[in-house]
């Protein structure tokens, strides 16, 4: 993914390392190569999965390598959202009871995370990966995070979320109960 300024081997590995930590310890924030949202998509997406994004640069870079299969927001395996616009995260794929892992992964590009999330929404988290309880602040409207929480209502079906700032990521897997505090 040199078109995106990322090393195809080591930057994606570092991104995965950050993602794996973020996903297994919800509420924690981890450094990844910049720009983080592009790095996450480049780490996860190829022709075997479908992608929904309005990011021209990303589309061009993936398409160049034959790795882009596009799908509408409601059908894509991986959804990349720079600014939340006209689609609803509740319409994203949630997988089936026999294969819940078919549920979508939504990558939100956000301005700030955690400590520096001024004016963001703070979430209280508990459950797998969280030692007791913890909080995570995300620069997204409360309505958006409530909609995300709604996708977890029939666990194990659901949507997993990744939040990416310029160079850091955090994640909210569907297994983690959350509430806006």
């Amino acid at each position, binding site marked *: 993914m040199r078109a995106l300024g990322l090393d*195809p*081997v*080591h930057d*994606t*590995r*570092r991104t*995965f*390392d950050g*993602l*794996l930590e973020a*996903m*297994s*310890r919800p509420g924690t924030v981890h450094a990844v190569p910049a720009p983080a949202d592009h790095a996450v998509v480049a*780490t*996860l*997406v*190829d022709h*075997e*999965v479908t992608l929904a994004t309005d990011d021209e640069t990303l589309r061009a870079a993936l398409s160049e390598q034959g790795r882009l299969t596009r799908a509408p927001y409601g059908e894509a395996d991986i959804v990349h959202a720079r600014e939340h616009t006209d689609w609803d995260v509740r319409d994203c794929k949630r997988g*089936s*009871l*026999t*294969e*819940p*892992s078919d*549920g979508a*992964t939504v990558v939100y590009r956000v301005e700030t995370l955690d400590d520096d999330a001024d004016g963001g929404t703070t979430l209280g988290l508990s*459950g*797998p*990966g*969280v*030692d007791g309880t913890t909080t995570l602040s995300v620069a997204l409207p409360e309505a958006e995070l409530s909609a995300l929480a709604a996708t977890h209502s029939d*666990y*194990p079906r659901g949507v*997993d979320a990744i939040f990416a700032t310029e160079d850091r990521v955090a994640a909210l*897997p*569907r*297994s983690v109960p959350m509430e806006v505090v």
Partner: protein
Amino acid sequence: MNDLPTQRSRERVTMTEHTTTDDVLPDEGTPVATDSVDAALESLDSDGLEGYNYAYLDEHTKREVRRSVLKAVAIPGHQVPYASRPMPLARGWGTGGIQASLSILGPEDTFKVIDQGADESINAANIRRLAENTADVPTTTDTTEADLIQSRHRIPEEVLTDEQRLVLQVPITDALRTVDPSDAANRRRHAHKNYGKMWVHLYENVVEYGEIKISSRYPTMVAGRYLMDPSPIPRWDVPKLDHADHLTVLAAGREARLYAVPPHTEVEPLAFDDRQFTVERFPEQACHACGSTDTYLVEVSEEATEDGDNAFETRYACNDASFCAKRRKNPDLPKDHHLEEAVDWGPGTPDAPTDDAGTPVEQGGAGE
């Protein structure tokens, strides 16, 4: 179809031409171009690694494994399918674990591989060497120094921390396979959290033996939702997964599935209120090498040297070879010696009250 005979006859002609050229030396035979031989010899010098991607797997394979690992972490205990590529050893010899490890490893990670507790078994040594050669990682046999530990059928005796990751090799992914060979039926059971058939199996165990006699692959609930096969680790190791500080990824190459237990996740072995989960018991036994009584021991049958009547004698030895070596130098070394705070880790941690690993059931029988 018509091309075939023509091609063959043309080949025959060329062959005949060859033998009649002037290159034939009367005594020393036909000189042969040795380009291919030279290339083969050169590739030996470079360990045959030229042309391979970093960490052996191509990026496409790694992306696929990584996607599945993230989904597995997001749905603790659920078996996520993945492609399971051909590896340079047969499926069933740790290929799932290798694919997971190589997708995670980076040059700053230190890698440890154990096979049934031993670092030096040929399988472990070869997997370590593959990672060393292709992923350019330092390797270790010291549990406390490793960032990533790939293991076959054991969790180390020393406490794993939140900076470590554990990859377990898995031969059979589904705990329900024991009670129903049908994978389709078992997937439906997992979908609806219908584990009645396993409860009946455990009940029958109690009726027959007075306690639950499952020596390894003990059926375990993860985060209160999925029944998981924790791989053939002994019962001794199962409690270590409960609210652990480390991430555990379980990967099966042959069955092409992987699943995970995130840190701080509830892992509960199935049991009844009046027949509780018990770990293996080694009454009156200690490791013959280091004297440990709080580690998982295995029986070692050795040829007796002096006593002529008994051809063999049975001794007990620590299964975790690297910790045993440390204990031989320092017999009082606790399992959490590398941590600032005392951690309750598995059965019989020294600073915990040692009531024979907290086993409430009184029936005898030391393992199987």
